[in-house]
C-alpha cells in the first residue's frame, strides 16, 4: 500500500516531460534537417537573391549538416537503446503495467524512431549528392 505524496508526483511529472520529448526528438531532428535543406536550396537556387550559382557551397553545407544531424540521432538512438535494455532482459514486448516496462517501452519506441529518422535524413540528403544542378 503506498501513499501518494507530493514529491513522488512532481518527480513523475518531470519524468513525463522528459520522456515525451525524448520520443519525438529524433523525428524532430529529421524535420529540422528537411526544412533547412529545402529552405537553403530555395534561397541558393533563386538567382535573384544571391546573384551567383552557389551550388557547390550548398552541397558542402548540406553534407556537413547531414553528418551533424545524423550524429545527434545516433546519440539519441544509443540512449534509447540503453533505456530499452533488450540485451540484458530479452524482453521485447514490455506489455506489463509497471514503471519498468513503461520506461523500457518508451526506450524501444524512441530507438525505432531514431532508426527511421536516420533513414529519412539519409534519403533526403541523397538528391544533393546525386543532382548537381538547380534546373
Amino acid at each position, binding site marked *: 500500500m503506498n501513499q*501518494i505524496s507530493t514529491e513522488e508526483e512532481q518527480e513523475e511529472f518531470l519524468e513525463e516531460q522528459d520522456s515525451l520529448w525524448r520520443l519525438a526528438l529524433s523525428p524532430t531532428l529529421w524535420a529540422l534537417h528537411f526544412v533547412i535543406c*529545402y529552405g537553403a*536550396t530555395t534561397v541558393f*537556387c533563386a538567382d535573384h537573391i544571391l546573384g551567383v550559382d552557389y551550388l557547390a557551397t550548398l552541397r558542402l553545407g548540406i553534407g556537413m549538416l547531414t553528418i551533424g544531424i545524423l550524429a545527434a540521432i545516433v546519440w539519441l538512438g544509443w540512449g534509447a537503446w540503453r533505456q530499452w535494455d533488450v540485451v540484458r532482459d530479452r524482453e521485447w514486448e514490455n506489455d506489463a503495467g509497471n*514503471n519498468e516496462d*513503461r520506461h523500457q517501452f518508451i526506450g524501444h519506441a524512441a530507438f*525505432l524512431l531514431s532508426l527511421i529518422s536516420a533513414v*529519412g535524413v539519409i534519403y533526403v540528403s541523397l538528391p544533393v549528392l546525386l543532382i548537381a*544542378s538547380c534546373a
Partner: protein
Amino acid sequence: MTRRYPDVLDPQGTYPPTEDMLAEPVPQDVQEAQKKRLRAAWKTPQGWRYWSAVNNTEVGIWYTMTAFFFMLCAGILAVLMRTQLAVPENDFLDADRYNQFFTMHGSAMMFLFAVPMFEAISILLLPGMLGARDMPFPRLSAYGYWCFLIGGIFVFGSILFDSAPKAGWFMYPPLATKEEGIGPDIWLLGLSFIEVASIAAAVELIVGALKCRPPGMRVNIMPLYAWYVMVVGGMILFAFPPLIAGDFLFELERSFDWPFFDPVRGGDPMLWQHLFWIFGHPEVYIIFLPSIAIAAMIVPTVARTPIVGYSWIVLSAVGTGFLSFGLWVHHMFTTGLPQISLGFFSAASEAVVIPTGIQLFAFVATLMVGRVKMTLPMLWIAGALAIFVAGGLTGVMLAIVPFNWQAHDSYFVVAHLHYTLFGGMVFPVMAGVYYFFPFFRKKLLSETLGRWAFWLIFVGFNVTFLPMHLTGLKGMPRRIFTYPGSAGWDWLNMMSTVGAYITAAGFAVFVYDLLRPKAYQGQIKRNPWGGGTLEWAHDVPEEAWGNRSVPYITSRYPLWDQPKLVERMDAGRYYLPDAPEGKRETLITSVIDAKPLMVQRVTGPAWITMLAAFFTGGAFIFPTFHIYEPAIVCGAFAIVCVLYWLWTSTAQVPDQERKDVGLGLSLPTYASGPTSVGWWAVWITMLGDSTAFASLVFGFFFYWTARPDFITIGADHATGAAVALGVTLFVVSWAATVLAREVNKRSHITLARIALALAAICTAGGAGLIILSVLDLEPTTHVYPATMWALMVWLVAHSLLGVIMQLYALAGSIFGKVTPQYDADLCNVTLFWHFMVLTALVTGFILGVAPRLLA
C-alpha cells in the same frame, strides 16, 4: 509553473488499489442505489430535448451518420460522373455541371466524410476504449458537430442551386480566384468553418487520450487506437492551419481584391499550392492512420492473440505522422521547382513507405501467430490490405519524379488515389462499422448481407479503378467531361462505369442492412467478438453512464488478462461508482502513467452549444454573399454564446474541495495549470493557431524568394515608431497578465485586478498602433502591402480575443469565479498570452525590421 496548494489539491489515500480492497463485495442494495443515482446523472434528455444532448454516445452517432450521409451524396455524384463518361461524346451532363460534380465529389469526400468520420468514430469509441465516462469537453464535441452539420449542408447544398464551386477540390488560383459566382466563396468559407470544427474535435480527442485514461493504463499498455488518435490529432493541428491561412489569403483576394495570387501585382499562385498541399498531403495520412487503427483493434480480436510488435506500430504511427509532412511537393512535381527540391520530396515520399509497411507487416504477423476466424470485419480488413498494397505500389511509382511527369494529371493518378483511399480508409471503416456495431447499437449486422456488400464493393471497386491505370497510361487526362471515340479509351471507361454501378449496389445493400429494424434480434451477447479491450465491457442493454465504475488497468488486453475485471466494474467495485451529487464526473489521470489526479465535472445537455454553432455559421456564411453587417452581428453573438457557456459551466468554484472516489482514494475536484484539462486544450489549440500564423509568415518569405520585386514597393513605409511602440504595448500587456496570475496566487487580489485592467488597455493600444503603422499602404496595389495588411489583420483579430480573455479573467476575479486558489481561467489566459506576445513580436519584426534587412 503554478504554485500549488499541496494539502488540498493533491490526491490522498491509497493508490494503486490492493487485491483485498477489490475483492471486498458491495452489498446489493448499495449497488442498486448507486446505479439509480448514476443513471439519473447521465440520463439522456427525452423528447424534443433529445437534441440538446452532448454525451459522446449521442453526438458520436449523429456525427457518424451525418458524415456517412455526405459520403453517400458524394458517391452519387461519382456515379453520375461515371455515367457521363460511359461512352464517348456523351451529353448526359454538360461541362459546367460536370465541373461542379467533380469538385464537390472531392471536397465532400475529404472535408465532409473522411476527416469528420475519423473524429466521429473517435468521439463514439474512445471513451469506451479508455474506460472514461465521456470525453473531457462534451459541449465542445456537440458544438463541433453542429458546426459540421450547418457547414456541410451549406457547402453540399450549393450543388442543388447550380452554384457549387467548379475549380477542383484543390481550388488552384488563378482559375478559382477568377471564377464567376459564389462557388469558390462557398468552398472557402464553408470549409473553413468545418475546419474549425475539426480542430475543436482534435483538441477534444488529444486531451481525451492523454488525460482521461483509466488509472493504471500507462502509455505502454493503452489501446493502439489511442496512440493513433494522439498522432492524428497532432497532425490535424499542424496540417489544417496552413489551409486556414491559405483560405484567409484566398478570401481576402476574392472579397477585397488583395492580390496574393495575382502575378500581375506581384502575387504568386504557387503560394496557394504550397499551403494547400502542406495541408493536403498530411491529410491523406490523417485519413489513413485512424482507419488503420481500427484494423489494429480488429486484428488481435480475430487472431485471438495480442498484437505483435506493439512498439513497432507506435513507431509507425509516430514516424508516418512526421514523415508525411515532408511529402507535399510530390503533388507539385510539374510546377517547375528546382530539381534538387523535387529530389528531397521524392526521397521523403519513398521513406514513408517504411513505417507504412511496418504496420501492415505487424498485422500480417499477428494473423500468422494467432488462430484466425474469418469473421465479417476480418473480411473487410483483408480486402483493405489487398487494395491498399496495390495503391501503395503505384504510390512508389508516382513518387519517382520522371514517372510522375508522365502520369501527371492522368487517370493513373485517379486510380492510385482511389486505391489508397478505399484500401486505407473506406474498407477499414466498413470493417469498423461491422465490428463496433454491437458496441454502439447493441445489435449485430447481418452476416449474409455483409458478405454480399463486401463482394459487390470489392469486385465493383476493382472493376472501376483497375482499368483506370491503363486508361491513364493511354493518356486520358483527369477532370474532362467527355472524350472523343477515336482516343481508344471507350471500352476502359465503359468497364469503369459498370464497376461504379456494382460498387453502388454494394453500398445500397450495406445501407439497407444498417437502417433496417433489428428488433427481432433480441438482446445480443455482451462481447460478441470476444475482444480483449475495455470497450467490450460495455453494458447490454444500454446504459448512458459509459462505465458503471472506472476500472484499474494493468494489461493491454484487460478483458483477457484481468479475469474479474468486468464483474467488479459492474458491481461498482472500482472508481467513481456513484454520483451522490447528481453531477456527471470522470477521472483525470497523469499523461504517462495514468495515476489518478482529479475528478473532472463533465458538462451536461445544453442548447447553448447549438446556438453558438448557429451564430458561428452565420459569421461564416453571410460573407459568402458579400453581406458583412449580419456576419459581424452573428460573430458577436457567437462570442457571447461561447462566453456564456464558459462562464456558466467551465472551471466552476467547486462546492467541495475533494471527493472520495472509492477504493480509499480521495481526489481534488478542481485543478488549474497543467493538471487541468482546460490548460491542455488551450495549449493544443494555440499550437494549431501558431501554425496558421507561421504559414502567413512563410508566405512573406515565400514571396521574398519567388519574386525579385517583392519588397521594393513601400518597404520603408513609416512604421518604425508605431510598430515599435505597438509591440512594446503588447509586451507590457503580456507582462501584466503574467503578473496578475502571480500576485493573484499570493492573494494580492486588488493588484491582480489592476494588472488585468492595465493589460487590457495596453492590448487595445497596441492593436491601434499596429493598425496605424500599415494605414499608409494600399493593399490592393501589390502583394507586399497586402501581406503587411494580412499580418496586421491576423494580429488585431487575436488581440481582440486577447482583450476579451483579459476582461473575462478580470470579471472572474470580481465575481468570485477566479480566486487565489481557483485560478484555472487566469492560468489559461496567461498561456494564451505567451503565444500572443510571440505573435506580436514576430509580426512587429516582419512589419518593421525584415523589409529593411531583406530589401
